[in-house]
């Protein structure tokens, strides 16, 4: 039987500052944040880095050279077409991270709006909207993407759409649940009592109180999306050559992993590192933003 909170109120200046402090104390989460930040920076600067530092571009082929293990000319080695692996890794990372971010944002926008409306409306509207989500959930993702690709051809925008179209479902469910929980709180009743419009209550009172869970879930969606993209690319449905993404690199590397192991090791390591880091960061954010914020 745990005793209730005993000590008197602590005067903390701001919820966000408190959260940041809690995050700061979580070394694993900070590590994750650091890694993600560094990787994003490096990949974002892929072009100038390739130009000035590395000296190769991602599409430069050197067929005569063929696949060579890491050496001081090619720091991570080359692939079967003589393309520098490090350059491809950087450019690939740029695409993977971009897909991850953009698809997450798309799913965020759709999911939050959908879930918020459903949770706020309640009753039959909520039931109908959620049944739709249930049905869409049941659709096999792979087939859906293949269909999209078949109809509209392969391009990277379609990739975003396909992934976003799948990810928003879970976001919608989560947001709906959160909205229903916040809706019960007394300050929402107070807002109704004041005679505020429903739209205002939703956007000004309910959604800002959901920022915590939304941020956390968004951070955890990015690695999911990146994995999805890798999966699609692995199937040959995603990014097309000469562009690379980490998924493509992993696919190519897996095909020849016995003979040229470095072609798999480095892309896989980069992917794994990023996924771990994002997950640590997401976990840390969830702990940091864990709402003690509405009650001291």
């Amino acid at each position, binding site marked *: 039987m745990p005793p209730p909170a005993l000590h008197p109120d602590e005067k903390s200046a701001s919820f966000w500052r408190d959260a940041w402090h809690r995050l700061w104390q979580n070394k694993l989460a900070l590590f994750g944040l650091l890694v993600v930040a560094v990787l994003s920076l490096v990949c974002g600067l892929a072009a100038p880095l390739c130009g000035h530092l590395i000296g190769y571009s991602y599409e430069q082929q050197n067929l005569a050279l063929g696949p060579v293990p890491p050496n001081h000319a090619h720091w991570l080695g080359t692939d079967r077409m003589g393309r520098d692996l490090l350059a491809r890794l950087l450019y690939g990372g740029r695409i993977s991270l971009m897909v991850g971010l953009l698809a997450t944002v798309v799913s965020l926008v759709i999911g939050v709006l959908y879930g918020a409306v459903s949770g706020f409306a309640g009753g039959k509207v909520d039931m109908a909207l959620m049944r739709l989500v249930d049905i869409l959930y049941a659709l096999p993702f792979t087939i859906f993407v293949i269909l999209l690709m078949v109809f509209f051809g392969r391009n990277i925008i379609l990739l975003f759409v396909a992934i976003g179209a799948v990810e928003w479902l879970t976001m919608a469910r989560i947001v709906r649940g959160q909205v229903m929980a916040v809706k019960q709180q007394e300050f929402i*009743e107070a807002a109704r009592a004041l005679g505020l419009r429903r739209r205002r209550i939703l956007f000004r009172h309910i959604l800002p109180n959901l920022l915590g869970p939304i941020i956390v879930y968004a951070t955890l969606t990015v690695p999911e999306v990146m994995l999805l993209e890798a999966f699609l690319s692995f199937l040959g449905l995603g990014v097309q050559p000469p562009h690379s993404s980490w998924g493509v690199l992993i696919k190519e590397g897996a095909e020849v992993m016995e003979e040229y192991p470095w072609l798999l090791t480095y892309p896989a390591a980069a992917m794994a590192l990023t996924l771990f880091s994002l997950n640590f960061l997401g976990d840390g954010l969830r702990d940091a933003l864990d709402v003690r914020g509405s009650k001291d």
Partner: protein
Amino acid sequence: MVSAPATSGPPFLRVRDLKTHFPVERGFLFQHRAGTVRAVDGVSFDLRQGEILGLVGESGCGKSTLGRSILQLIRPTGGVVLLDGCDLTALRGRRLRQARAGFQMIFQDPYASLNPRMTVFDALGEAILAHRRVPRAELPARVGDLLQKVGLPPRAQRKYPHEFSGGQRQRVAIARALAVEPQLIIADEPVSALDVSIQAQIINLLARISREMKLALIFISHDLSVVNYISERIAVMYLGRIVEIGPAARVFEHPLHPYTQALLGAIPIPDPVRERQRIRVVPPGDPPSPLNPPGGCPFHPRCAQARERCAREVPALEPFMDPSHQAACLRTREIN
């Protein structure tokens, strides 16, 4: 003076036969009606402008639901609420929202009734702007005025709710209710979550506001002594009905209904000699659930004075000795 007699005149608020029933549905796939929770089961009373009515009862009696039903935060299933002649139960949509400026609520939990993400300025400004146009530039001054009215410094508007103590938060909540300039305020257990020494401050504040602004106030509480202090009239609720209503002093000193008598008897007196010597009848069992109300008089299973007819007939509020003091008991005459 706290309890100056209210302005006489026609009743400002008339509640007639108000009922709020909640259906209880059971069933896994196909829900069927398993019963009804009669939270408010036929309540009628009047309130004059500027009058303070205390509403007491224990858990399950429906006092909170009654407060919310009057304010249309929960839509009643039957009955009429006339505020200054306008039937609130008939209002819908935009007209209801606009009418809300006339009646407000103060909630029990000061930690939950303020949006933690909004500063005091945001919250009060929003309330002010909800029903009237005020130039943005004037808002800080207006908010400052409101805060001073409830005893807080104007600069407090920059802070977030969690930077305040419970009592201060309740003051902010009162300021928010006052911002729309209502004529009726229903306070649902406004001091129950506060320390004893802070309770007095908030009670004083509410009494002063009601007096100065001629606000009708319904003060809901389970604490009879607090209610007695602030109210001109007291209504006692049991299982969705008012079982006794009358001037506060009379209800307190000469309770007519056995339940009121039991309630008063159960309150511990901070006076060791009197407390240990008093003889009182503690009603056995628990307050019943409004899902399964007993037939006849709702209190009869626990009543020491019950007779056979009490299980059959439902008593109505009848005056006894004083027209303003009524009790819903079949045996009022015999008991008193």
